[in-house]
């Protein structure tokens, strides 16, 4: 099975939840910096981080009552933006168990769900794996 995974330079395993720290922001900044420099990046989300790409989020966050006309992009829209900009070098995986357990299904297009017991293959598919946070 490992052969079916494309090779990557770096895996960013986003284990911790969003909204409690700047971890997700750091992950995106790191991915952006790596991709701009030509690296191949895999992102894997677990736990509540699977919700970052939930299709239910839509394109925009709920309205800001003090800036009603402005559309603030959802995390799912930003993930789409990243995947559109770097279609050949960014692959975004999400843990199937966590996706179902945390109610994140269905995902937006191009998010590849993988069973948690295949995670070790993802570690083997990259030169460097970084864990961000804990589930």
């Amino acid at each position, binding site marked *: 099975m490992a052969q079916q995974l494309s090779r990557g330079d770096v895996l960013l395993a986003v284990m911790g939840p*969003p909204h409690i*720290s700047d971890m997700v922001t750091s992950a*995106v900044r790191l991915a952006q910096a790596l991709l701009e420099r030509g690296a191949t990046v895999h992102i894997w989300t677990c736990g509540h981080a699977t919700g970052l790409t939930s299709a239910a989020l839509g394109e925009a966050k709920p309205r800001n009552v003090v800036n009603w006309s402005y559309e603030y992009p959802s995390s799912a829209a930003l993930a789409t*933006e*990243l995947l559109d900009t*770097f279609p050949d070098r960014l692959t975004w995986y999400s843990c199937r168990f966590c996706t179902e357990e945390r109610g994140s299904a269905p995902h937006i297009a191009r998010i590849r769900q993988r069973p948690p017991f295949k995670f070790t293959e993802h570690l083997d598919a990259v030169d460097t794996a970084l864990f961000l946070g804990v589930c």
Partner: protein
Amino acid sequence: MSEDGRRRLLIIERAYRGALETQFADVLYLARELNRQQGGTDILLRGLAVTYAAAGSRPAPVMVAGSRKIDTLPDPRESVRTLIEEGAVIWAEEDDLAMFETGPDWLLPAVRRGGPADPLPDWSAYRGVYFL
């Protein structure tokens, strides 16, 4: 505000609760709405959150995702200024300020100091105390 005129005290201790995914909807967004509906609230900043009350300007938080510039990240220093303009009373705890304060001009002038040298907000004087 309640009929007896007592205000509510909001206590904020944790800073850095998301940026990209949070944007405008940070803890001070809720505080601002509570302040508006309550006709004024007091807010005590503790821990890392005392940096919300720093006077110094800093570059506006901006990042890039894909080819999109995101300039709507939380800006707590700006939000504290807005809260003060809208009648909130901001306090910062001196013990925590000591970790960051580099001089007498570090803290926004309108922010009250609370701690060993100055009285902290008296919880019993408030209608309620809420940890946000």
